[in-house]
């Protein structure tokens, strides 16, 4: 019963995607859109498979992934540690809170020119931009998760003889884990978006650069390929994070 319900939902979910592809095909084959502007879907997916097999395109993906992971990793480390520190100490909280309040609504992309001037056109400026954008959701949800840990849990751990330094790793961090992982998920999607944008603005390699080169030469097919690739990368990374989440939260109710 359950599985039938699930498969019905899956079918229903595939429907709009199939509809869009059908509409896309229809637009091309009935001649509403010239194939130069809107290449047929079969052609685009064929091109995608063909590109995925080439060494140069794999290198573009690798460049994008390296920047994405580096920025995301920095954001996770900084976000989780600052978030927990702010939740644990009122003094740190008093300093961090107003700074976050000012920096969080700032459009970080606008800082990109400054980063370019300071860090050059290489990996450094892009990784920093990704880290700056992914940092705040992770920081905020860590702070929220850590500051709502039940006091009773901490008291029981102390009564059971856990040393103060261990409470952070044994009690607070695990209890805040669901919230931290939610923040990481948002941060991951943001990283995908930002790394692509940064590569579009200035770069010599990466998926964003592939899109811009295609746009300059009006190769519509090659413009769709990087876009589909980044969407697939986002889906794969999201699924991996989901697997990590269900592994880390295996003891939690309703994880």
């Amino acid at each position, binding site marked *: 019963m359950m599985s039938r319900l699930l498969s019905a939902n899956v079918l229903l979910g595939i429907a709009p995607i199939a509809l869009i592809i059908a509409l896309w095909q229809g637009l091309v084959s009935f001649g509403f859109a010239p194939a130069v502007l809107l290449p047929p879907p079969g052609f685009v997916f064929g091109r995608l498979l063909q590109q995925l097999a080439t060494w140069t395109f794999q290198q573009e993906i690798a460049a994008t992934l390296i920047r994405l992971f580096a920025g995301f990793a920095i954001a996770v480390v900084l976000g989780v540690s600052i978030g927990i520190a702010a939740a644990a100490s009122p003094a740190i909280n008093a300093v961090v809170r107003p700074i976050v309040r000012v920096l969080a*609504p700032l459009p970080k992309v606008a800082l990109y020119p400054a980063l370019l001037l300071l860090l050059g056109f290489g990996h450094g400026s892009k990784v920093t931009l990704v880290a700056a954008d992914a940092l705040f959701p992770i920081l905020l*949800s860590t702070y929220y998760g850590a500051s709502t840990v039940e006091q009773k849990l901490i008291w029981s751990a102390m009564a059971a003889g856990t040393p103060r330094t261990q409470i952070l790793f044994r009690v607070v961090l695990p209890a805040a884990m669901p919230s931290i992982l939610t923040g990481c998920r948002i941060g991951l999607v943001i990283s995908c978006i930002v790394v692509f*944008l940064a590569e579009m*603005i200035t770069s010599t390699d990466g998926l964003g650069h592939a899109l811009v080169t295609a746009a300059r030469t009006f190769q519509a097919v090659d413009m769709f390929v990087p876009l589909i690739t980044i969407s697939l990368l*986002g889906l794969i990374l999201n699924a991996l994070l989901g697997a990590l989440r269900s592994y880390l939260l295996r003891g939690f109710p309703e994880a």
Partner: protein
Amino acid sequence: MTSLAALIRRAAPVLACIGLLVVWQVASLVLKNDSFPTAVEAIWAIPDILGDKEALLNILASLRRMALGFCVAVLISIPLGLLMGRSRSVAAFFNPLLMVIYPVPKAALMPIIMLWLGVGDITKTLVIFLGVSLPVIYHSFEGAKAVEEKMLWSGAAMGLSPSQRLVRIVLPAALPEILTGCRTGLVLALITMITSEMIARQSGAGNILFNALDMGQYDTVFAMIIIVGAMGIFFDAMFERVRARLVRWSEPQFDLPLSFS
């Protein structure tokens, strides 16, 4: 005594701004880099930009596109999100599609949409619309899903039709969550606005920023960064005031927007 503490809390963001500017000033004095002007130099360049009639018109045109894209996105996304939250089949229909679209940077669609619709206002507004709608749909969806069933049952028992229930029970109950989504969307609208103008260098605030970068007018670059940043902070603060009025009965879960970009 409490008023003094409240005063400090109110002034804290301003102090943080000043602190960040001081850090910037010190860093640029220490680094002595030609392409990194001091905070004071950048601030002095702001009146030049705002005094220039063409630049001002550019920035206003950007803001108009942003407002239009944001409003249309909110008007379409909230009903869709609410419907998704209340009906399983609607949610199952749209969820995979949204998941596929989510990691695609909306501004990256610019070059393709430009091929079809040209470089004009429509393209840029459409991209802003796409960028804003996803978080608003997502938050409306989450908000509508969390509405207590008992309230809906009582509404049904009192003879409200399904559409009346959606407007009179689900909408108010989901409002705090919806507004969180709108707040995220607002910051996103600003980000998408800047990026779309960076890609289609024709007019607007993003165009001024990147043209100055190409021409090596570094104080203009940093002045524009301050202007854009100030816009972000200003919009966010304004929206927070509106939000606080509309949903006075609910404490915000996070007092800061959670997801942007």
